[in-house]
């Protein structure tokens, strides 16, 4: 792929003559990864390769977060696209008060919230039983490790139950749990990603953990006993 044609792509008018099939970006071919500050600065100047690197760096976390929050891999993929379009449009307004990762998390959470409300208004979330709708496709997205078939089945079954319980929580509770426990953010980072006070995060976290404990009572009996 010609690097020149790619760099024209984000310049708008100048890249019109380039066919869209040539537009996939190969950030892996970059000699080295740019530091975050330089990466943001390069993206702001319209550097297509820098933006491709940014997408590659954060694509996994955005898809994973969206899939956990929405429970639908197709929706998660759509939301991830929307998130990076928003990132591209709003990068000029990024002030650097939080890390780029936290800022992207915030956009992703907002997009998931909007998408959920959109479908909720259309009652789509009530059409299918939760297991059929969510859990089989999500399992297809999981990384495959070097586990034995028995342990892999066990792990998947446990993950299926936890994900189903997660989707039964209120969206605010689900969000803090996923950000804190699954994505491993600190309470301060979660507060920054959600745009709320740290005390609010801790309060929601406490209620969310308690709600999960009640929903996972059967599973926890075995976990606590062992």
């Amino acid at each position, binding site marked *: 792929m010609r690097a020149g044609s790619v760099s024209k*792509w984000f310049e708008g008018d100048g890249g*019109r003559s380039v066919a869209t099939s040539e537009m996939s970006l190969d950030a892996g071919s970059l000699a080295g990864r740019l530091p975050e500050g330089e990466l943001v600065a390069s993206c702001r100047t319209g550097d297509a390769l820098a933006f491709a690197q940014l997408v*590659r760096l954060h694509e996994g976390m955005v898809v994973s977060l969206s899939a956990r929050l929405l429970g639908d*891999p197709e929706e*998660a993929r759509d939301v991830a696209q929307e998130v990076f379009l928003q990132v591209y449009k709003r990068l000029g307004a990024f002030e650097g008060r939080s890390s780029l990762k936290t800022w992207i998390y915030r956009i992703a959470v907002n997009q998931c919230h909007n998408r959920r409300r959109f479908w909720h208004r259309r009652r789509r979330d009530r059409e299918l039983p939760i297991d059929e709708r969510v859990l089989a496709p999500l399992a297809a997205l999981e990384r495959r490790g070097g586990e034995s078939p028995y342990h892999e089945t066990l792990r998947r079954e446990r993950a299926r139950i*936890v994900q189903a319980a997660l989707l039964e929580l209120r969206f605010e509770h689900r969000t803090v749990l996923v950000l804190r426990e699954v994505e*491993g953010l600190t*309470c301060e980072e979660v507060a920054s990603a959600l745009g709320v006070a740290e005390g609010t995060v*801790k309060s929601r976290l406490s209620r969310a953990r308690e709600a999960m404990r009640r929903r996972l009572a059967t599973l926890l009996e075995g*976990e606590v006993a062992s």
Partner: protein
Amino acid sequence: MTCRAVRRRLSGWLDGDLEAAQARALSAHLERCAACARRAAELRAVSGLLADLPRLEAVDPVEAPVALRLELAGGARRPGLAVLFRGVAAARPFIFPSLVPAACVLLLGVAALLALDPGPLPEVRLAPGAAWSVVPASGTEANPLFPSAEVLLPQQLAAVSLPPEMLAGKGEDSFFLETVVARDGSVAGVTLLEGDTGAGQPLVEALRQQRFEPVRYRGRRVAVSVYRLISRMEVRPPRT
């Protein structure tokens, strides 16, 4: 520290957010209270189960679709209407050729409408000296009624003999006349609507002498307009 207070702080204790004194008191309570200790173990297990959830990955990377959508959003394939809402500098010449046929169709439509238009209606002109006036009251001599189910035909008081010159003539003649019977039963006017004016004049004069029973409509006397057709025909006896 009570069980209730302990359970309210368990989440913070798991995160290490409690002050040292509070954390010590809570730990001491957990050593004494099996129920609270179990609750703490369950909450810790919840965190463990969530942390063990695998990182999900998209089957197809989103990088290429994002690139395509950015190209569409900022590139050449904007909707046609966008040309109306953007600056002149951003207008692209290849959009205008597509507007030319649309403009031609629009012009043809306007031209067809103009060609089919018959023009303004003829101007209404009043005769010199004429003026718009109020229609006279219904049932008066100037605006008589016509015979109907409620307005009966005026009954003649005395028969009128036709003028002898009419009977002396030859051939066939017919006269169509309008007689306006006034509210007092007299004849207000006779108008020859169709027929020879010269031959019909004696007939008009004779009809003006007629007298009628006044006609009433809803209790009041009204003027009535009566039309009549008078024909003269020559009748010959059949040949034997």
